[in-house]
């Protein structure tokens, strides 16, 4: 069995933190064709995210997709808190944002994010880049990629 098939055989728990309902809808739409069962949980700000992650009874997700610009607590702050928490540190965090600031991306890499995805404007691209990210995660290798491989993109 390949890694992705292995993962497909069990439920993939994915937690998405994005305050934008359109983007949540588009994200879920993009995962419609995902091979295998997937369970997507949505939260809409950083405080909700941290509250959910620190709840004792909550089964931790396999992967986190976090938007940068969120009300109350932004993605940057959430990432820092997650990486300081010994229970949460192992969850791969994929930053998922509209903006692309070189300095910001560098800082996110330093702070331990797994990948950076710039929200593409083409739906097909979005599907491909999310699948690419999940494929990497499925390898169960949570060591950080090199800086060059940190920003995930697919060719047009």
């Amino acid at each position, binding site marked *: 069995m390949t890694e992705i098939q292995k993962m497909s055989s069990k439920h993939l728990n994915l937690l998405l933190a994005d305050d934008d309902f359109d983007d949540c809808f588009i994200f879920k739409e993009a995962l419609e064709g995902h091979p295998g069962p997937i369970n997507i949980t949505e939260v809409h700000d950083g405080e909700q995210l941290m509250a959910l992650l620190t709840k004792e009874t909550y089964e931790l997700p396999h992967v986190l997709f976090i938007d940068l610009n969120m009300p109350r607590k932004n993605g940057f702050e959430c990432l820092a808190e997650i990486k300081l928490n010994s229970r949460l540190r192992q969850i791969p965090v994929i930053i998922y944002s*509209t903006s692309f600031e*070189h300095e910001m991306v560098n800082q996110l890499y330093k702070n331990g994010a797994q990948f950076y995805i710039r929200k593409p404007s083409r739906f*097909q691209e979005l599907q491909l880049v999310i699948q690419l990210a999940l494929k990497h995660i499925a390898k169960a290798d949570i060591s950080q990629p090199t800086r060059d491989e940190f920003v995930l993109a697919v060719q047009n």
Partner: protein
Amino acid sequence: MPKSQKSAELIIAIKEIVFQNEERGKRAAELVIANKELVFQNKEKEKRAAELIIANKELAFQNEEKEKRASELIVANKELVFQNREKEKRAAELIIANKELAFQNEEKEKRASELIVANKELVFQNREKEKRAAELVIANKELLAFTYVSSHDLQEPLRKIQTFVSIILAKEHANLTDKGKFNFDRIQSAAATMQQLIEDLLAFSRISTTDRKFEKIDLHIVIEAVRNELKETIESKKAIFEAFNLSTVNIIHFQFRQLMYNLISNALKFSRADVQSHIMISSRVVKGHIVDTEKLSPEKEYSHITVRDNGIGFEPHFSQRIFEVFQKLHGKQEYPGTGIGLAIVKKIVENHNGIITASSELGQGACFDIYIPAN
């Protein structure tokens, strides 16, 4: 005559003789005395005569002295008369000079009071200018922050328009008429243009807000990085890319890389269809006076970087305007673009305290000359 009478007469005669004798003796003694007196007087007279001779000589001498002094006094007097005239002349001159000084003094006082007024005015104007400068700094910061935030936030809904359109095109493709598909394509294309516009505006505002850290960098490294970034375009255009004499330059690295990227990608974009594209980049160090401008210090050393191509060029009268934001010389169909690229280039050069000039003739290629301080 009786004898008695005769004796008496004799006595008398004797007596007379004795008396006369006595008188003669007296007179002789008197004469002796008188003689002695005369001798004494004579001697005295001789003494006085000698004294007179001496006194006379003394007087003659004194006379001569007086004459001498008199002639000296005449000379001295003439001198005094001359000096007096001179003094009068000078006094008259001094009176004139004094009047002149008094006049000048008044003028100076007038001017001093005028200067005090002018000074107060300048102080006031200075304060106003400082106020305005401070206001401008604030306004500029606000504008940049606004540009940044608005272009950042504008991307969000735009991206969604593009995404939803692409969802429709992917999932509803079969249900759309050809006209419907065409119209959706137009939406996609317009949105893509707007996205580019926003990204360029963002880059433009970022150039003004980010820190300016100067480093000494080999221009080769910068050019190679840009060449690598544009590799595909260079290959597809089969462009000749030449870089020579590249020296070390004092630059804000990522800004200068953006500058070279914009210039080189422009050179590739505006190449002629019928001629193989040829791009030449060179650098040298020059003194400021070789360029006819007040913006460079004549004796200072500048890195002069030239980017030259053999592309379509432009009419010389556009050589300033091409650096302004949103200024384009071609329709979007011919050469797509936002008209921000060269505005960014100019801003980056200004951030380096330098100047950039463009020269061209239509159809003759374009040449961009950059001058930035060498140290």
